[in-house]
């Protein structure tokens, strides 16, 4: 039942991806609208799937790879919808939504059954810590995509060429502004994620900081983004340099999330 809801959400995300890709090619307003509604439908069906799984499992469904990837994709879709309200960034949907769909397909390669909760995860901090962390991750994922578009667009503008469908993408200033917005939301969320994790560790492991690989890598990620913020606010870096740092920060974050789970292990690896 739960997996059925999940599949219908994935179906809507794929529809939405298709609509945004068609919109990119033909620039039809109606197609963009269709993409938007498909995205809204997908988001709410996905929400239903998360809520349903919460009641089915009896705990916050962010405890293994399937649930984590699904929740990560859900946060990305949610933040994209949030950004769409303020900025005209529909064209980015042709990258964000295929990414969301791919994440969900990837999630399906892991066992989807509800596993019993290990004692260490039985805590009120589980929903708080994971929600903030994944929101931070999702926000920085979008800024990562925006940064890549920024770098490509800027290079083509410098060469005085127009890249494929370049006219449909937002201006460099808008992209940079979105990057700034992502930074100003993502960084506080990441910080709250680390702090709540630290407080939880204080109750569960006997120490608020034990230099476990995940903790260390999340700190490294935090420092990369802190450098980015300093460079932007104190030195006044804009555009390309921030975009490169955003990409660096995301790679570090990706390693925190996946690399530590797959390669390093430690107290924090839940598969």
């Amino acid at each position, binding site marked *: 039942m739960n997996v059925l809801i999940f599949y219908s959400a994935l179906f809507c995300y794929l529809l939405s991806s298709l609509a945004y890709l068609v919109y990119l090619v033909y620039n039809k307003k109606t197609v963009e609208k269709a993409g938007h509604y498909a995205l809204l439908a997908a988001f709410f069906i996905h929400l239903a799937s998360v809520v349903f799984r919460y009641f089915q499992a009896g705990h916050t469904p962010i405890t293994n790879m399937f649930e984590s990837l699904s929740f990560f994709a859900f946060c990305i879709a949610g933040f994209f919808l949030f950004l769409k309200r303020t900025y005209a960034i529909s064209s980015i949907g042709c990258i964000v939504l295929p990414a969301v769909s791919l994440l969900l397909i990837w999630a399906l390669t892991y066992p989807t059954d509800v*596993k*019993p909760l*290990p*004692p*260490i995860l*039985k*805590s009120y901090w589980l929903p708080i810590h994971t929600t903030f962390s994944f929101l931070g991750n999702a926000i920085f994922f979008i800024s990562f995509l925006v940064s890549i578009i920024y770098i490509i667009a800027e290079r083509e503008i410098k060469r005085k060429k127009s890249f494929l469908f370049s006219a449909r993408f937002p201006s460099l200033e808008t992209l940079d502004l979105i990057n700034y917005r992502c930074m*100003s*939301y993502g*960084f*506080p969320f990441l*910080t*709250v994620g680390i*702090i709540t994790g*630290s*407080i939880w560790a*204080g*109750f*569960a*492991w*006997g*120490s*608020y*900081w034990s*230099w476990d*690989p995940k903790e*260390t*890598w999340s*700190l*490294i990620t935090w*420092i*990369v983004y*802190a*450098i980015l913020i*300093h*460079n932007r*606010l*104190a*030195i006044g870096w804009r555009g390309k340099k921030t975009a490169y740092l955003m990409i660096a920060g995301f790679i570090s974050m990706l390693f925190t999330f996946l690399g530590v789970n797959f390669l*390093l292990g430690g107290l924090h690896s839940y598969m």
Partner: protein
Amino acid sequence: MLGTVVKQGATPEEYLALYSENTYKIITLFGLDDAYHAPWFIALIALFALSLVLCSLRRLTLFARETKVVMLPGEDKLLKMDLHSYVPEKDFDEVLGLLTRRYGLAVRDEQGVVLEKGRLSRYGVFIIHASIIIILAGSFIGLLFGYKGFVTLKIGETKDRLVLRGKDPAEMPLGFAVMCKDFKVSFYPTGEPKDFVSTVEIVENGKIVAGKEIRVNEPLSYKGIRFYQSHYGSTPVFFFNVGGERVVLAEREAFRKNSLLLMVARYERKVHDFGPGVLVAYLDGNEPKATWFLKNVDRLREQNLQGIKVNLNDIQERPYTGLEVSRDPGVFVVWTGFVFILFGLYVNFFVRHRRIYLLKTAGGPLVAGTALKNKGNFDKEFKKLLEEIHVHTP
């Protein structure tokens, strides 16, 4: 000038130094495990903290200078601002009354007023940096005055010392005793552990002063020392009959009966194909000897040592609970730092400093406004304010 150099040069540098050292640490984590407490690492953190302190002090002096500077600019300056408008048909006090609904009064003189909102946001960066210093200070207190270790308790066992973690495990007195009244593990149908609970009592000066069911995520705290459920296991106990006397021994435990001194030297769950067995060491005169007792082999279950009949009656597994013990007097300092850093981040990213100037001029009251961050949003707010002023009837 010096301060500028420190902030813009040293802080990112410090960050980068910390970053590469950490990466290096990750790589060496497989071999070197206590590098996070290495002197050079702590020195690096101290350097980082020092640069933060200098940076914050510089910011403080800036604040001190700035507060004196706030004053009402002249008409020509206000006209240069992006957002300004004359409201000739309105009375100065009427406009002021409307503006003070949402803005606080900063400066007032004969010619006009300066109003502002979100002044706190100017202190955001300072709050964040200060709270990082607080967190580092808290962790340093923990490093100096705290410790980490563990105790293992069998059901009914009482201990007043803990084993410190580290390269050479040492014992340390707790200052009181912990007693394990009960310990239970429950499993899911899949065989994975569901819950483990130790019922523990704290005994001080012969009196029970505290008690709790310690679970994972639910530690017991007494006098700043916390006990966490961390692991569990079981140890075997051996039931002997030594010359007609029933004796229960654990591994490495010794027992004397008349001239016989014996000790359980080693336990094997499977001795070849003969099932569980214990190697019992004893003294033959001054010469140490050892012999195997096998539970399932009749001939080896009962043996004569130094003329005394020794019988291995049973071997049982007794569960024990492993409790992590830690004392960290800096933890509340760190948590205070956490609260402040969250507040600082909120102030820095979500509170916006905005100023509105109201001046008496020959052409009627002049309203102007400036904002440092999120100008587009302030644009809308300013227009709304002007509209409100225009429609308002006294």
